[in-house]
């Protein structure tokens, strides 16, 4: 009897876990299908789950205003589980089985690289909402996050400025995969061009999901004690950031001594961390939740209401961040492009995307470049506050055009400023 009960519970559990997929494959004639490809489990879930919610919220918002060309949008959500080959499988499923018009998804560059061949082969359309290392321009992808010159380079320039602490030595710390490796290659070349010697740069990598940062913090302390002002540039991704920042706080490495600037840490990642010992550490983004403007107030309120409606975990404490903003902007620009092209045909939409503009929550009207598939974005450098938000301490005057081919990598000057086949 008892055993039977247990097994029936198991069956229910299994059935429930399969539900989201079952629900998403239902068909409706008068809708446009939109794929959402974000890890909802595994090491990247900490960052990507909120992007899924943002995408669903934006779709809901568009539907409430009558949809796109009179048709409602229908989201197809899949979970590639922080498993890079699975990203490609799920992308193929979205494009061939569900026949979605567009996919919003990916966070890590390795997942983007994994789905690229699928999008090229099937001529799909991907909106990628996260800052990345550049060195890529694909016809089938629109990059709504920052290229290195819209995040990494300005952040390092800030660290080298008087207000940033006039840093002379740099620790380049990252998770071991393509984005941190490439970004650090660019940064190393950039630092060299500014006269920083190789001996003044330390590079170190940890695997995905790494949780013991004692050695690394000790190494940073030692490196910083060797002389000259030191700063840490972190490209650690995913949930490793929580143990990293916990260790940083516990080890008493203060921002006034050795500031850490992060490129993949925002409001969402800091939610699980006590930020009081971290005050003053930095992040560089194109949007912060703490920005004060009408568009942002609207965006934050919309997401808070959404979290309450959907009963998200800790709904009263949800935060917005840069990739969420980029997701939101991307969906709206796609909608505008579809309406301009009067079709969801991928090639027509790609053509109509050029020059689209949107009043973004960052407070600027930002524009999709006519040629290079990247947004023109403002850059902000923020310091962590005790409440887990960021104080903007430096910003550009206005949106900056993306340079996906970094001038600091040799040979890039000959690369074309637009994707092939367009």
């Amino acid at each position, binding site marked *: 009897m008892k055993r039977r009960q247990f097994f029936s519970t198991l069956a229910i559990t299994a059935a429930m876990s399969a539900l989201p997929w079952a629900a998403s494959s239902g068909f409706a004639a008068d809708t446009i299908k939109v794929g959402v490809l974000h890890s909802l489990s595994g090491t990247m879930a900490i960052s990507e789950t909120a992007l899924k919610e943002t995408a669903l919220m934006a779709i809901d918002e568009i539907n409430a205003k009558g949809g796109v060309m009179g048709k409602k949008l229908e989201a197809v959500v899949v979970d590639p589980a922080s498993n890079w080959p699975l990203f490609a499988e799920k992308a193929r499923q979205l494009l061939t089985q569900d026949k979605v018009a567009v996919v919003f998804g990916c966070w890590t560059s390795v997942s983007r690289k994994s789905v690229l061949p699928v999008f090229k082969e099937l001529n799909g359309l991907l909106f990628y909402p996260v800052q990345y290392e550049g060195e890529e321009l694909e016809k089938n992808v629109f990059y709504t996050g920052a290229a290195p010159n819209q995040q990494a380079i300005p952040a390092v320039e800030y660290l080298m400025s008087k207000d940033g602490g006039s840093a002379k030595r740099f620790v380049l710390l990252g998770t071991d995969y393509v984005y941190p490796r490439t970004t650090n290659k660019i940064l190393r070349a950039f630092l060299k061009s500014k006269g920083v010697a190789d001996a003044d740069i330390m590079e170190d990598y940890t695997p995905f999901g790494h949780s013991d940062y004692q050695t690394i913090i*000790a190494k940073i302390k030692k490196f910083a004690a060797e*002389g000259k002002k030191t700063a840490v540039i972190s490209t650690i991704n995913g949930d490793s950031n929580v143990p990293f920042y916990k260790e940083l706080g516990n080890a*008493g490495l203060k921002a006034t001594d050795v500031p850490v600037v992060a490129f993949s840490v925002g409001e969402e990642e800091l939610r699980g961390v006590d930020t009081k010992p971290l005050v003053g550490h930095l992040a560089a983004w194109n949007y912060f939740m703490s920005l004060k403007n009408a568009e942002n107030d609207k965006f934050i309120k919309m997401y808070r209401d959404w979290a309450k409606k959907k009963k998200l975990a800790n709904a009263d404490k949800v935060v917005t961040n840069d990739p969420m903003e980029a997701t939101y902007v991307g969906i709206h620009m796609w909608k505008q492009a579809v309406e301009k092209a009067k079709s969801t045909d991928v090639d027509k939409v790609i053509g109509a995307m050029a020059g689209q503009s949107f009043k973004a929550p960052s407070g600027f009207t930002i524009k999709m470049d006519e040629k290079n598939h990247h947004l023109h974005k403002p850059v902000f450098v923020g310091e962590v506050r005790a409440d887990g938000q960021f104080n903007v301490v430096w910003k550009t005057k206005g949106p900056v055009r993306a340079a996906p081919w970094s001038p600091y990598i040799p040979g890039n000057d000959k690369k074309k400023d637009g994707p092939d086949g367009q």
Partner: protein
Amino acid sequence: MSHVVDLADTHLSPAVPPAGCGFRLVMKRTLRLLCCGLVILVGSARAAMPPAALSGLVADDSDEKIAAIQALASAEPESALIVLEALAKNLLMLAGGQLLIVEGESVTDAATGVKLAHVPDDAEAVTVNNRVRRELESTLAGLRLFAPDAAVRLEAAKELASGAEPASLPWIERALAQAKDPAERAQLELARARASLGSEDAKVRLSAVKTLAGSADPSVRALVAGRLVMDGERYVEADAAVRAAAADALRQIDRRFMLGDSLARVFSGVSLGSILLLAALGLAITYGVMGVINMAHGELLMVGAYTTYLTQGWFRAHLPDYVDFYVLAAIPLAFLAAALVGAIIERLVIRHLYGRTLETLLASWGVSLILIQAVRVVFGPQNMELSNPAWMSGGVELMPGLVLPWNRIVIVLFALIVLAGISAVMIRTRLGLYIRAVTQNRAMAGCVGVPTRRIDTLAFAIGAGIAGLGGVALSQIGNVGPDMGQGYIVDSFLVVVVGGVGQLAGAVLAALGLGIATKFLEGVAGAVVAKILVLIFIILFIQKRPQGLFALKGRFVEN
């Protein structure tokens, strides 16, 4: 907290810093500002602040802000302390040209100390960046040097010793003239040396470098090393005697650093070892006693961690005053929860598969997937937010530059306690005796009346319960999510296999050995390569010694 300032209440007196002899630009500017401050002070009534200085605090330009902080501090030390502390804590707000200190419900006008009913709608926080914060902290420490409380004074002196800016020099000098306590004096001497390292007088620099040689602060090393840097063709430090003294000081500091560095490495190895041990102890029992390869062991850790999460939630909801002790309450709960899950797994699955190793492995792997998915359905796929209790945050500074985080110290102690407890159970109790009997010879134990089946369940439940305890520890340093167990299962098996099956002492040695080896290799080769090297080492080791570090001695009946 009230911020009404009353001169009569304070022991602070307006500062008239002794004029330093020829300092760099910063000093000159400061002195000029100090004089300005004095003039304003004479003209001002009670604690009302010079409006110019206050307006400087909200300037966009960092230079202006820093100048305003220094001017305020020298002009109105007692009220400046309050305003600057508020600025450092991000409590200062600007509303229509009026500076307010907003702390919870209490709102005070920063300039006059008058209470306000509420925060105006247009109030905006006054922010500082790292550069201003550095100056601010240094200035605040300077002001606190004259606090009535000796402990506060000592703390301020310590802070200045590890971060004094040249601008603080006048205060340090004045405090030195008053200070009696030798500990305070020593810190102040260091602070003075630090602040005067940039002096124009070579003699002052020489004595500063010599004093700093006795300091053990990590930031001092960088300062002293800075004296030896070449700027283009010539040295930053023009005086050869100072350079020689700096090189000498550097050698002394480095010797102390070496010691701290080795200690830190050993500690992080022990810490990792204790975590591995907590994760693997339970497995040492289940694998050792029953020969069951329990792939769901990692998920039992997860059960413990989620129990901790639920306990935290319950404490937050019902006993918010005691939330710091939720970890203690979670320890027995996690043990029971994991033991219960373990007993259920044993009764329902493992029991039917004894002696069939491969089937147990597959079945328990299935159980692990079911547990992961069940947690994902119930709690969601995201990591849970667990905050360390206050007494586990921060660290203890064993020696300057060597901070041991409290959470890791507590976990090492916890591992020791769990180890002692489990050894006591295994050695002293009848249950332990039975478990050992079954481990050594199941058939014979059964013959003499040991209820082997029940012992199996109990042993499995105890093993699972210990995994639950491991989960409590892991929740304090790592992430708590549905997949967390997967990251530890391989490491746990490695510890058990290297240590020798069925051996607690082996598991302890293996966990510590692997922990220290990993941390040592990480220091040399980086985390990624270290992991590979450790795995290669284990493969070679198992080739050489398949029975692990310790093998059970005695007569066995295999299968």
